């Protein structure tokens, strides 16, 4: 067994692994083809398991010298299932939308003959390395996702895993290590952007005989999935970082609070913890020092507010996940009353690399006040939905258009929501804004956890605000009056507006109420939940006016304000729409123009999608 007692042990293991089959410069010698299958929740949902099985079969059958590695998420969500193929001596190539017939093509054309079939989506990888900034992406937190097998500690060690931990516990004092984190300028990636080093220092300075470090893996923002990807793709980096955190703050116990909706991440984390324990990288006397540290898992149970750190702590204590007033902050009094350092998954993912490469290296990346990179979960109406990691300061335009490939179906960009339910909608005029904590805040939104939902001309901004409020109403813990009742009232006013009953004074009420909730709510949920309302009111006031005064939904999304018609000129009487209509609202003879009965129509829009002649329209 590979027990690590000293840093030398680690180096030895690493070296022995690298000679047997090297990961980066690779299979040159062995002559093996290396195939990586992206096997995160996303990939599996798209069929990665079937792909994996078929690949093994065909390789066996065709007797190809190849190894298959199951990795975490590669980030190309739009193209799942994806596989990466590395032929010795070649740049690795990622193939997307893979299925059986495409695998055949890949095997027979590319692997056998080296020809890239052009009817398959493929892209070159290796592009997100630091040297190549032209790709606009830079992978620090995601450095190992999609590259290594997350269920193998050896693979992590091969890519210099646990080196940072070894260095910290054997060569540095906690203060020295904290100084590196402070100097790097790393700020919390969970939403607040609090300087990570400072938080560690406060926890370190809090006097107590027991302390805790907590990894916040609750990832509640619907539309963000970077924490899941990291945990599924690179769980050891989180274990390593938490252990470093424990050493720096004087905690011997780590807790991962993870949402129960992430079974795969939980499983991989458990495997990784077990492996780390076997290697002596978790547990007693790490690296032969007198520092001991271990990690436990606590599950969330479906409550967004439990991402808020005080609520999270209550939840870990077996209580209702209600937030409490800060101060005291968890770093002074947290889990069971002991000083507790809470950091986000992505924050942690940065730590080992910062320790290894130094504060100076990290602080060169990014903007003046926001250093490093940020992972965004680009979703909604963009072509290339996926996980992207870019240096702070990258503009929204670069992310949405250059990396994201622009708006789906050639539609017009309308807005992008950052920061999830706590954030706001940014518009055309913000596209060239360099993204960092402060710029987003100034523009009326938030970094949040990095959800980025792109909306096009078909999205109604009032309905969008209502959607977010619906979320906040459902997820409010119900403790404080402004959030418990106020959000409900905000939602009701929005509902009134989107159903065509809005009055002008409602807009005034909306603004006042939104302001007061922000000003008076107890925790971050309520303090930010009105943001979607305020930012859409700021940026799309005309849409509100249209709903209230003209009783119109310009995006044709609010059902009570739309009506479906069939243009008799265009209708050929093909009956497709009538068959699609589940409430039988469409009447008409074959080959004669059809009509929609507005009293029956539930405005589901199915007909519009079915009509090949553009005869159905909304107003």
């Amino acid at each position, binding site marked *: 067994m590979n027990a690590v007692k000293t840093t030398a042990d680690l180096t030895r293991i690493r070296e022995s692994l690298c000679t047997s089959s090297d990961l980066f410069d690779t299979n040159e010698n062995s002559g093996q083809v290396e195939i990586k299958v992206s096997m995160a929740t996303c990939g599996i949902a798209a069929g990665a398991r079937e792909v994996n099985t078929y690949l093994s079969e065909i390789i066996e059958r065709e007797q190809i010298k190849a190894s298959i590695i199951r990795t975490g998420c590669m980030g190309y969500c739009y193209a799942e299932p994806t596989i990466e193929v590395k032929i010795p001596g070649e740049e690795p190539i990622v193939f997307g939308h893979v299925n059986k017939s495409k695998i055949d093509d890949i095997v027979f054309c590319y692997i056998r003959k080296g020809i890239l079939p052009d009817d398959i989506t493929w892209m070159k990888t290796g592009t997100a390395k630091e040297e190549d900034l032209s790709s606009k992406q830079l992978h620090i937190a995601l450095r190992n996702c999609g590259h290594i097998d997350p269920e193998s500690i050896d693979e992590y060690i091969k890519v210099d895993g646990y080196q940072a931990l070894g260095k910290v516990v054997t060569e540095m004092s906690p203060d020295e290590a904290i100084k590196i984190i402070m100097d790097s300028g790393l700020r919390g990636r969970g939403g607040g952007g609090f300087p990570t080093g400072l938080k560690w220092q406060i926890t370190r300075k809090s006097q107590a005989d027991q302390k805790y470090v907590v990894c916040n893996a609750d990832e509640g923002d619907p539309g963000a999935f970077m924490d899941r990807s990291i945990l599924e793709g690179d769980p050891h980096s989180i274990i390593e970082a938490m252990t470093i955190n424990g050493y720096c703050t004087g905690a011997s116990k780590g807790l991962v609070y993870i949402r129960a909706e992430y079974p795969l991440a939980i499983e991989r984390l458990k495997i990784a913890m077990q492996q780390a324990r076997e290697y002596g990288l978790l547990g007693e006397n790490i690296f032969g020092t007198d520092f001991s540290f271990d990690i436990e898992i606590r599950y969330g149970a479906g*409550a967004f*507010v439990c991402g808020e750190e005080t609520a999270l702590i209550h939840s870990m204590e077996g209580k*209702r996940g*209600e937030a*409490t*007033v800060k*101060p005291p902050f968890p770093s002074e009094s947290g889990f069971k009353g002991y000083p507790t350092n809470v950091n986000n998954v992505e924050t942690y993912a940065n730590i080992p690399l910062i320790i290894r490469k130094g504060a100076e290296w990290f602080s060169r990346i990014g903007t003046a006040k926001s250093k490093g990179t940020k992972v965004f979960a680009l979703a909604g109406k963009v072509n290339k939905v996926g996980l992207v990691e870019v240096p702070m300061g990258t503009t929204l335009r670069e992310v949405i258009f250059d990396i994201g490939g622009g708006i789906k179906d050639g539609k017009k960009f309308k807005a992008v929501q950052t920061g999830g339910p706590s954030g706001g909608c940014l518009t055309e005029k913000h596209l060239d804004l360099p993204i960092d904590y402060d710029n987003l805040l100034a523009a009326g939104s938030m970094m949040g956890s990095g959800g980025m939902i792109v909306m096009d001309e078909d999205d109604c901004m009032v309905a969008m605000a209502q959607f977010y409020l619906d979320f906040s*109403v*459902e*997820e*409010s*813990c*119900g*403790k*404080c*009056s*402004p959030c*418990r*009742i*106020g*959000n*409900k*009232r905000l939602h*009701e006013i929005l509902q009134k507006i989107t159903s065509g009953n809005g009055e002008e004074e409602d807009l005034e*009420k909306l603004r*006042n*109420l939104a302001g*007061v909730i*922000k*000003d*008076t*709510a*107890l925790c971050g949920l309520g*303090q930010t939940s009105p943001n979607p309302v305020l930012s859409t009111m700021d940026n799309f006031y005309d849409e509100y006016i249209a709903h209230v005064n003209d009783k119109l939904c310009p995006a044709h999304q609010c059902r009570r304000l739309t009506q479906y018609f069939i243009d008799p000129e265009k209708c050929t009487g093909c009956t497709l729409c009538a068959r699609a209509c589940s409430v039988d609202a469409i009447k008409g003879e074959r080959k004669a123009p059809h009509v929609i009965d507005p009293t029956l129509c539930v405005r589901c829009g199915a007909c519009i999608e079915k009509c090949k002649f553009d005869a159905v329209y909304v107003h």
Partner: protein
Amino acid sequence: METVKVIIDRKELEVPKGTTILEAAKSIGIRIPTLCHMKLEDLNYENNPGSCRICVVEVEGRRNLAPACKTECTEGLVVKTYTSRVMNARRTVMELILSNHPFECLTCSKNGYCELQTIAHDLGIREVRYTGEQSVFPIDRSPSIVRNMNKCIMCRRCETMCNEIQTVGALTAVHRGFEAAVSTAFEKDMTGSTCSYCGQCVSICPVNALSGRNNQQEVLNALADPDKIVIVQTAPAVRAALGRDFGFEPGTLVTGKMVSALRYLGFDYVFDTDFAADLTIMEEGTELLHRLSDYLKGDKEVKIPLMTSCCPGWVSFVEQHYPDLSSHLSTAKSPQQMFGAIAKNYFAENLGVARDKIVVVSVMPCLAKKYEASRPEFAVDGNPDVDISIYTRELARLIRYANINFEELPDSDFDRPLGESTGAAIIFGTTGGVIEAACRTAYELYTGKRLEQIDIEELRGLEGIRSATIDFNGLPLKIGIAHGLGNARKLIEEVRNGTSPYHAIEIMACPGGCIGGGGQPFHKGNMKVLRKRASALYQADRDKTIRRSHENPYIIQLYKEYLGEPCGALSHKLLHTHYFDRKEIVGILDETKNEE
């Protein structure tokens, strides 16, 4: 002490570190409204969730408004409590609360005592701009307490009281968001919960979400019924508190006026529960001596310490949480029930009428007594010993209802025979009083000597747990006293562990004992008020010529004429009771039977 300088509304002041803005402001005469916050120093009770947000103030340099109740003063803090931003926020928050609150002040029993009403008034709310869906909960009426959660503002004071002070754990917050509410497990009725009916949650609820069950109409009906003889008994603690609802200083004894008012209301006999308290001492004191003598003889089976049983809140608590220890409870009934039993038997026989012709009404400081009166074992063929139990606030309302100008009433005295009592009975109303009264009698019966130092100061006071050793002629009798169920739990845990050092334990469920009962005029846990009520009772004791229960001439007569001897056969039948195991347990299903 470390201090910090702060500026509040342009006034500079220096306060100890750790002072909240709320406290600091109060010290310079600024009263910031509060709803959820409640701090009762002497009880160690603090409900400070910082959740109602009615107390928000502006703090310079802070992005959002700060809750004054929860924000500590730090050096150089600049606070504004009265700006348009603050006032707009407070008013909007108040409107939000009101938007989910029924507008029923005119028919609400909290009208005039309601904190929500007062603050809405102070904030000058004349219109509620925000309206929408309101919570709808069924109203839960237990024999003692009515829960109308439609009026709840989620201050969570009750939850803190029930869990942290009383440690009963009947109440909890359930669900979340707009649906969040305070309720019992599985949202059952109070009767299906572990509630002991101590009523402490009722006494601190700022609104009328929790209130006592109202039985005024039944009293009026009985009084209006020409065929009934209606008897009233009043508990010792009532006389020290009733005046509060008529503007008297806390702790003013209004015994004489109360008796006059009751006569005016039309009761046929105005008696005193204190008479029954003397009786309780005879029975309980004798029981203690019996158990002690068995114990001293080396009997291992005898249950020592003996625990008092005159507080039905406490009895319920034992039945629900410590049924294994219920044999430590004295089997003596509470004074209320002893009175009922004597009235419906001895007194009825004396009058020569059937028991069901008599209606016994009791006026109690207590909500648990309503429930106690309804317990089936306290009825004969369905006819209860105590027909109606009302609490002090209900009596105050009845007095107003009957057009009585209470302040101006002359004094008058209780009727005889069941109206005569001793000083020992009066102090039943405060914590330590029962055991002091019992000691006065037990000492003399045990030692055969006169107790010289009749005021047993060691047993007095308002600390949550007290203990004293009384020298019974060489036998050091160890006594434990607790008030509040959380404190009681500590003593009974010792009993369960076998580490209890006591021979006798007195427990009262309410803070301060019955003077702080859930049916008393709202004292909101203010210990100053409770102290005054307690000293009024001790004063009344001193003013009595007879201060030992066994010297009450009517008690002596009762035993001679009717009962025989304390703890004798008839006493046992009429004046003693038994207890039930009411712990909720999950039964074990016979697996051979089909389950699903």
